[in-house]
C-alpha cells in the first residue's frame, strides 16, 4: 500500500471528529463512521491519527476496521456499484448479475476499475426485496436487474453524464 501524506486540513478534520466524541476510545466506531463519511475511506494514515487521538493502539483500530464490512481502506470508484446478495435477490438471480458486472468491468468484488470510475461491492439486503434483484449505483437503486441490463447500466455512467432513467 503506497504511503500517503495527509494534509494538515485532513488531519485537523479527523481530530475534530475525535474531539466531537470526547476522544473516547469507546466511540471508535462512531468516529470511523464519521471520518469515512467525510473522506470516503480509511487509509492506514487516517487510522493512525484516530488511534493517537483516541489513545488506543493502532492495531485495535485496524482490527475494528477490518472486522466491519462497512469500513473500507480502499477508495471507492466514482460510481460505486453494489449488488444486493440478500436471499431474495439471490433466488431471483443476483449471482448472474454480479458475474456479468465482473465480466463487463473486469474487476473482482472489492476492487475498482483502473480509471477509478467504478468499484464493485456486494451488500446484504437493502430491503427492496420486491424489486429483486437489486443493484445500487451510488444512491440510485435499479430493480429487477437482469444480466442483459448490466451493459446499459454501466453505459449510463461511462459517458461521464449519468442520465436519469427509470429505475424499476
Amino acid at each position, binding site marked *: *500500500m503506497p504511503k500517503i501524506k495527509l494534509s494538515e486540513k485532513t488531519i485537523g478534520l479527523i481530530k475534530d471528529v475525535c474531539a466531537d466524541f470526547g476522544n473516547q476510545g469507546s466511540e471508535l466506531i462512531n468516529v470511523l463512521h464519521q471520518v469515512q463519511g467525510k473522506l470516503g475511506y480509511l487509509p*492506514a494514515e487516517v*487510522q*493512525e491519527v484516530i*488511534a493517537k487521538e483516541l489513545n*488506543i*493502539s*493502532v*492495531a*485495535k*483500530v*485496524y*482490527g475494528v476496521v*477490518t*472486522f466491519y464490512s462497512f469500513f473500507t481502506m480502499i477508495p471507492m470508484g466514482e460510481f460505486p456499484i453494489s449488488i444486493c446478495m440478500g436471499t431474495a435477490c439471490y433466488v431471483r438471480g443476483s449471482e448472474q448479475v454480479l458475474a456479468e458486472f465482473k465480466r463487463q468491468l473486469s474487476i473482482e468484488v472489492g476492487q475498482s476499475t483502473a480509471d477509478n470510475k467504478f468499484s464493485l461491492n456486494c451488500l446484504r439486503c437493502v430491503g427492496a426485496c420486491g424489486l429483486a434483484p437489486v443493484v445500487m449505483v451510488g444512491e440510485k437503486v435499479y430493480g429487477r436487474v437482469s444480466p442483459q441490463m448490466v451493459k446499459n447500466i454501466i453505459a449510463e455512467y461511462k459517458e461521464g453524464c449519468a442520465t436519469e432513467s427509470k429505475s424499476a
Partner: protein
Amino acid sequence: MEMINLTIDQKPVVVRKGTTVLKAASSIGIDIPTLCYMKLDDMNIENKPGGCRVCVVEVKGRRNLAPACCTEATEGMEISTHTIRVVNARRTVVELILSDHPADCLICAKSGNCELQDMAHHLGIRQIHYQGEQSMYREDTSPAIIREINKCIMCRRCETMCNDVQTVGVLSAVNRGFQAVVAPAFEMNLDHSVCTYCGQCVAVCPTGALTEVDETGAVIRALSDPTKTVIVQTAPAVRAALGEEFGMPAGTLVTGKMVAALRRLGFDHVFDTDFAADLTIMEEGTELLTRLSAYMAGDQNVKLPILTSCCPAWVKFFEHQFPEMKDIPSTARSPQQMFGSIAKTYFADKIGVKRENLVVVSIMPCLAKKYESSRPEFSVNGNPDVDFALTTRELAHLINLGNIDFKSLPNEEFDQPLGESTGAAVIFGTTGGVIEAAVRTAYEIFTGKPLPRIDFEELRGMDGLRKATIDFNGTPINIGIAHGLGNARKLLEDIQAGNSEFHAIEIMSCPGGCIGGGGQPYHHGDAEILKKRQRAIYSEDKNKTLRKSHENPYITKLYDEFLGAPMSEKAHHLLHTKYFDRS
C-alpha cells in the same frame, strides 16, 4: 463462602462458587484438555476467549456442549467429559484446526514444544478428515521475533499478553471469519511497529506461529572460525531454567553444568553476565545516590524517581510510549551491554585480541536482548559490542548439537576476570532483584555503615506492583517495583501526573522478571514454574559468600585498572547510554 455440589463423570465434587468446570474437574483428577485457555495463577494473567472449543464437555440438560474453561460450576450440575459425543466433537475440532495448519511439524521451530502437536497426539488423531484451503499470510522476521502466522490458531494468548498484560498494543485480532488472524496494524512487520520485543507473545504461543530468531548457526560458525576468539556471558535467569530443557525439575540450579557445557561447546572463555550486573549496580547505584543527594540538597531540577534501565523491552517501551520521560531512567546500560563493552575493550586488550576478532555471545532469557545488541549505539565502527544474543532455548539446542549429556556434566566454575559475581548480581534474574541489589550497595555507600541485614523480603514476591520503604539510616527511601509493562505503565502515569511517591523504581517487562523472559523454556501456562525459578535464584544468592556488588573484587580491580571511578568519563563513555524518542 458458598459451596457448589456437582458431579463430573459421576464423581461428586464440591467447589467454591465461581469455580470453573475445568478447575472443578482437575481438583478430582480429571484433566480436561485445553488449548487456547491459559492462566498464570496469582499473576493476574488469564486468557480464556472460549475460542478453541477443545475443552467442551456435556452438561446434562444443556442443548449444546459447554466449554469447561469458561463455564462456571452450578449447583447440581452433571458433567460428562468423555462421552462419545464429547470425544467426537473434541477430535473434530482439533482436526479442523489441523486442517488449517501447515503440517510441517518435522521442521517446525516449535516441534516438541507445540501444544497443538501434543493435543493431536493426546487425542490420537491419525487422519485429518477435513481438507481444504489453508490460510496464507506473509512471514515476518524482525530482529528478535519471527511471525509465521499460517500457524496461528487464534488462541489469542499473544493478543492478551501484548494488550492486557503489556499494554504495548502491537497485536490485535484482524479481519474476520476464516481470514481472522492476530497481527499488527495493517499487517505490517513487527520492526515497523511499537513492538518492544519483550517476547511474551512468543512465551505463550502454543504453536510455531511466534518464535525467536534463531542465531545458533551463526554462533557455531564463529566457534569453528580459528581466527576468532569466542567468549560467552550468561544471564542470571538462565541458570535457573536451563535444566528444564533437559528434563530436570523446574527450579533446578544448573550454573556449574551450564559452564561445563559452554566450555565443551568450544567457547574460549566462559564468563558471567552477573559480573556486569555487579558493575551495573556500581554505576546505577552511584547515579541514584547522586540524584538523591542533589534532591535532598534542595535541587529542584533533579529527576526522581530514578528508573532502572536493565530491561531492553522496557527501554523500547518508554521510548515509544513515554518519550517525554526519557531523561528519568538511569543512563546505565544493561548488564549485557556493559559486559560487551568491557569485553571488547578492557578484556580484548588484556588478552591481546583485536576487537574484530573477539566474538561476544550472550545467553539470555530474553528476546529483546537480540534487538538490544543490534542497536547502533552499542557498536563501534559497525562492530557490535555483543555479537549474538542467544536465548536459553537456543543454548539448549546448541548443547544438543554438541552431543552433550547435560545431566551428567560436572559442575565447573566461570573463567576470570569477567566471571566473578556476587549474590546481588544473581538476583537480577527476578523481579525486585535489581533494586534489592542496588539497595544493598547504595545503603552502605550512603550511610557509610554495613547493612544490618542483607535480605530485603519486602522487595520480593510476585505481585505485579510492589512498594516498600527502606530506612537509609533515618532517611526513608521509597521504592517501587513493577513487572509486566502494564504495571509499569501505571507507575509511569503516576509520575507523569506528578503523583509518584517513589525515589527509585525497578521495572522489568516480563511477568516475574527475567525468569519469565521470552527466551526461557516454555512454561505452558504453569505459574508454579516461574515461582520455582525465583526460589532457585534467591537460593543461589543465599549460597554466595559475597552478596553485595561493591564487594566483588574483580569489579574493584576493573575500576582500579581501567575505569577509574563509577560515573567517570570513561565509565560514561563505555557503560552509559542515551534514549531516543520513537513515538
